[in-house]
Each structure stands twice: as structure tokens, then as C-alpha cells.
């Protein structure tokens, strides 16, 4: 563990999540089993002021893990603590101190970014004066002011992602959880998002992100957990985990060690 990060903000303890497969899903997964273990005894910690990345292929359990941490779904076994609050026992307090961004959470196309920012500010109980100052700051930072009165349905994908991003942190949360933050974005918007994650880190926020993009992890993350088949294959500081190799090289080394061939 990096000595700089000692204040534990997120602790996942033996998280387990199993889903029931429909017949269609069974065909896709090429299995006759009706159950799929998405996350299998996952444990890790994230610390104040660091960016922790969950790296893994599609279907490894990254998104399920982040959804459990953000209290959208409940773990079958184990528990997780965000700033000391249990996701099982205190989900409301957990939601108060996190900002969660995932492509699954959408914004209603009928409303404008301006209206939605105020609405979600109210949902988090942000005071009006604080909300106005946050809006000015974040809309200015992301250039949303130019289209703040345009309906979300009329915005481009990049614009929508910017709006989703600022809305997810409207309440200035201490912990930011982003699921595949740059997926589907053009290079310019992706850079704006990655730069902002760096800024949040410098502000002392703790950031958890999931991705399958090696360069994003190398650029942003202080520590990384490699998830394969719902299990934590490796976890540690990026430099320790790579051991002088590139992340891509090291990842496939770990992958082959567990799964054998890539195909």
C-alpha cells in the first residue's frame, strides 16, 4: 500500500453477489446453470485522496461491485463500508456521501441541465445558496452554461455525459464512484473527464472507478484491483502490481495464470 494513503474511506469485506440467469442468458453464457456468481468474495480498501481502479474484462464483476457500493443492489454475503457507514445497514447515509455515475443511470430528456442540477441538488438536500455557487462553478468548469437551457434530449452524447458528471457530484461528495467514466465519449470529452478526476483527487476526494482501459488506469490510478471471474486476482499500488512491466503485459500475465488461454 502506498504510504501516502492511510485514511480508509471504503472497505469491501468478502462481497458476494449471485444472479439468476434466464434461459436467454443461459444460452449467451453457454451454461445450463441457472445461477451466475457475479462477485465472489471480493475484499479491498480505498483511501482518502486516492484513485482506486477496478480493472477487468467485461463480465468480471466490476459494475456489480460498484452497484453494491453505491447501494443500488445488496450483496448476498459480506458488507461494505463507505466512510464507516454500512451499505446494508445505513444505505441512506452511504448515498449521502457518495456520487455515483454509470451509463445505466439516465437523465430525463424533457428537462434542461439547469433544471436537473437544481432538482438533484434538492434530492441531496443541498441548500439553495450553496447549490447556486456549485452550479456556477461546475457549469463553468465543463462549459455547460452554453447549453444549460437546452433539453437533455437535444444534447450530444458528450454534453449529456458532462451533465451527468456534474449532477453526480452536485452535493460535493467525499467519495466518487464512476463506472467506465470515459465509455462512449469522444477524445475531447474523455480528456475533460479524466482531467477532472485528477482535480477531484487533488481536492482530497476518494475516487473508485471501473474500467477495462489500461491507459486510463496508468494515467489516473494510484492503486488498482484486477478482477477476474468476480474474484480479486491482484490488488495493490500500480507500481508494485506492475513490477516494472506495462499494465497491459502484467494484466494478461495474471489472466493467463487464472484462465489459461485468452480465447
Amino acid at each position, binding site marked *: 500500500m502506498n504510504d501516502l494513503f492511510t485514511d480508509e474511506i471504503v472497505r469491501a469485506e468478502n462481497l458476494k453477489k449471485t444472479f439468476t440467469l434466464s434461459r436467454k442468458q443461459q444460452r449467451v453464457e453457454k451454461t445450463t446453470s441457472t445461477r451466475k456468481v457475479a462477485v465472489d468474495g471480493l475484499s479491498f480498501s480505498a483511501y482518502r485522496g486516492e484513485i482506486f481502479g477496478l480493472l477487468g474484462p467485461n463480465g468480471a464483476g466490476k459494475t456489480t461491485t460498484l452497484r453494491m457500493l453505491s447501494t443500488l443492489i445488496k450483496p448476498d454475503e459480506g458488507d461494505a463500508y463507505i466512510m464507516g457507514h454500512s451499505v446494508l445497514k445505513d444505505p441512506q447515509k452511504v448515498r449521502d456521501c457518495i456520487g455515483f455515475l454509470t451509463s445505466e443511470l439516465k437523465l430525463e*430528456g424533457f*428537462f434542461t441541465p439547469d433544471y436537473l442540477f437544481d432538482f438533484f441538488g434538492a434530492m441531496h438536500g443541498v441548500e439553495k445558496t450553496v447549490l447556486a455557487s456549485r452550479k456556477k462553478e461546475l457549469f463553468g468548469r465543463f462549459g455547460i452554461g452554453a447549453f444549460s437551457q437546452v433539453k437533455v434530449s437535444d444534447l450530444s452524447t458528450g454534453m449529456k455525459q458532462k451533465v451527468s458528471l456534474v449532477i453526480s457530484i452536485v452535493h460535493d461528495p467525499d467519495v466518487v464512484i464512476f463506472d467506465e467514466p470515459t465509455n462512449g465519449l469522444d477524445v475531447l470529452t474523455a480528456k475533460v473527464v479524466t482531467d477532472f478526476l485528477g482535480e477531484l483527487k487533488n481536492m482530497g476526494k476518494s475516487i473508485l472507478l471501473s474500467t477495462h482501459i489500461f491507459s486510463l488506469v496508468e494515467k489516473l490510478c494510484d492503486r488498482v484491483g484486477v478482477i477476474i471471474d468476480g474474484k480479486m486476482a491482484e490488488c495493490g499500488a500500480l507500481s508494485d502490481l506492475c513490477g516494472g512491466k506495462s499494465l497491459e503485459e502484467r494484466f494478461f500475465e495474471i489472466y493467463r495464470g487464472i484462465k489459461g488461454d485468452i480465447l
Partner: protein
Amino acid sequence: MKLLALMKKEFHRFFHDPRLIVTILLPGIVIFLLYNVIGSLVNTQEKYDYKVYVAGDAAYAQVIKAAVEADGSGSTVELVFAAEEEGKAAVQKGEASALLVFSENFTPAAGSSVQIWYGGSDESLSFYNLATAVLQGIAQANTFSVEGHSFEPEENFAKMFIAGLLPFLVVTFVFSACMSVTLESVAGEKERGTLATILATSVKRSHIALGKVIPLSCISAIGAASSFCGVVFSLPKLMGADLTVLGGYGFGSYVLLFLLILSFVPLIVSAIATVSTLSRSVKEASGYTSVVMILVMLVSIVSMVVTQMGDWVIAVPVLNAVVFMGKILGGELAVWQSLASVAANLVYTVLLVWLISRMLSSERVMFGK
């Protein structure tokens, strides 16, 4: 504050979308226009040879005769001048369409009056409506009074029609208004993933449920009121039913009617919101809601056919409102039964809101594939 913001969002969504406003108000306007057109077509085909007894002033009886014969239907009016009692006997026996009784020394001024005695036949009712329209037209400029007297007061057509059909129509309109706004707002939001975004915030699930049910009930009530007005104002043209019968109900009747309608609007919104929360898409929710609609319609129709039901009906949602609306419109002021029905419907609504809150917390319901 959070509940208020959720409610304001629903109102904002509705009142800032002209298409939604049109969707909710249009049925009432269409019903009014359609029923009037149908009424005009039906009425123009009716041709009667009225036999009308007249007691008193002859001049105004001739005015009525001329006006009725000039309505384009080809009807004729035969006036028989006779004593009041003789006329009443003829109408009661069905030998005459109606009896016009003009007060002594009738002049179209205050203090004078015209009584129209009529029976229960279509012909009799038709003349009564036509004569009333003519006399009220004259009375608008003057101030004499026009009184209608049916020989079948217990089976007053207009009142019977209103008492029998109106509760069913109210339920139908309330249901369609609730359906048009609730499906989109609940199942639509779930399908689009925007409900999940709200679930990721720290707002209580019960507030999300209330934040849907309260504003959607208000909006549905507007839609239902629009359809209701469409029907009521087209009754005279469509069925020949006299709107003045509505003025015959007391203040207490209107308060009870209002409370009964007010109690089952949120109940139906909650029921549709419940199936919408359970569904994965608007299409699926529409399917489930159709089943609920059939049940509600059946219950309403049963209440029209079965007239004698015990007080147990208070415990049956929707049916209680339909039955007691019918009783109130029929002239029976069932106070405690109506109030108990209102309370029962509110309890069911609270239970459904609680159920929606539970479903919003359920991972299987909200995120199950």
C-alpha cells in the same frame, strides 16, 4: 423539501409539455363535441304528433306550438284547451303528451308561472324538453317561472339516467386519465433509467412514491374533470336529460360526491403506479393495467345492474365509490357510508404507496432483468 422537489418535477413535466396537456384535456372536448353531434343526429330523426292539454292562457300555448313545429323534425302539436284536472288525467293515462298550466292572468313577467306536466314516455319527455327550452328562452328576457312536474317523480328519467350511468362514466374517465399520465411517469421513467438516477440519491423511497402519486392524482383529477364536464354538458343534447336536475342536489350531496371522487383518484393512480413499478417497460405496464381496467369496469357495471348491496360494499375499493355516488345521485344521502368509503379508499391508497416504496427498495423489481 425533497418531497416538494419531486412533486414539483412531476407538475413541471406536465404543465410545460403542451402535448401532455392536450392529451389530458382532449377527451373531454372530444366527448362534448361527439355527443352533441350524435345527439343532434338522433334528435333530428324524432317526429312526434304531440297532443297537449292547455289550461289558462292560449296565446303563449300557440307560441310554443309554433316553435315546436318549426324545429325541423316535422312534429305536429295539437292543442286541447281544457280544465287542469282533465288535462292531468289525460297525461297520466298516456292519452296526452303534456299539460301546460298557465297561471291566472298570465303575462311574461314576475309573479306569473307556467307548469308543465308530463309523463315517462319518450314523446312526453321530448315535448317537455322542447317546451322548457322555448319558455326558458322567453323567460330569459322576462322573469316568470317555469316549473316541470313529472307524473313519475320516482322514476324521473334525467335523475335515473344520471344516477345510473354517471358513476360508471366518472370511473371510466378517471381511470383513463390516470392511465395516460401514470404509465408514462412511472413505467416510462423506469424503462428509460431515469428512476434509477433518483434512487442513487439519498431521498427516501416513500418520498419518491408520494412524489409520484400526489401530483399524478392532481393531474388525473384535471383530466377526469374535463371528461366529466364533457359528458354533463352534452347530456341535454344527447339524451334529452335536463341539466337543471343537477341543481336539485343539495350542497351536502356535492360535498360527498366530491370526496368520493377525490378518494378514488389517488387509489387508481396508486394501483396503476404499482403495476408500473413492477413492469420493466411501458408496454408491459400497459398490459397489466388493461387487466386492472377490466376489473374496475366490471365492478362498475355490477353496481349498475345489482341495485341492492349491503354495507359490506364499503370495504370494496372503487365499488364503494360507484355505489354511493349512484345512491347520492339517486337522491339518497348516504352520509356515513360515503365517508367510510372515502376512509377505506384512503387506507388502500396508503397501503399501495407503502407497497410502491417497498418495490422501489427491491433490487429484483428495480434492477431485475
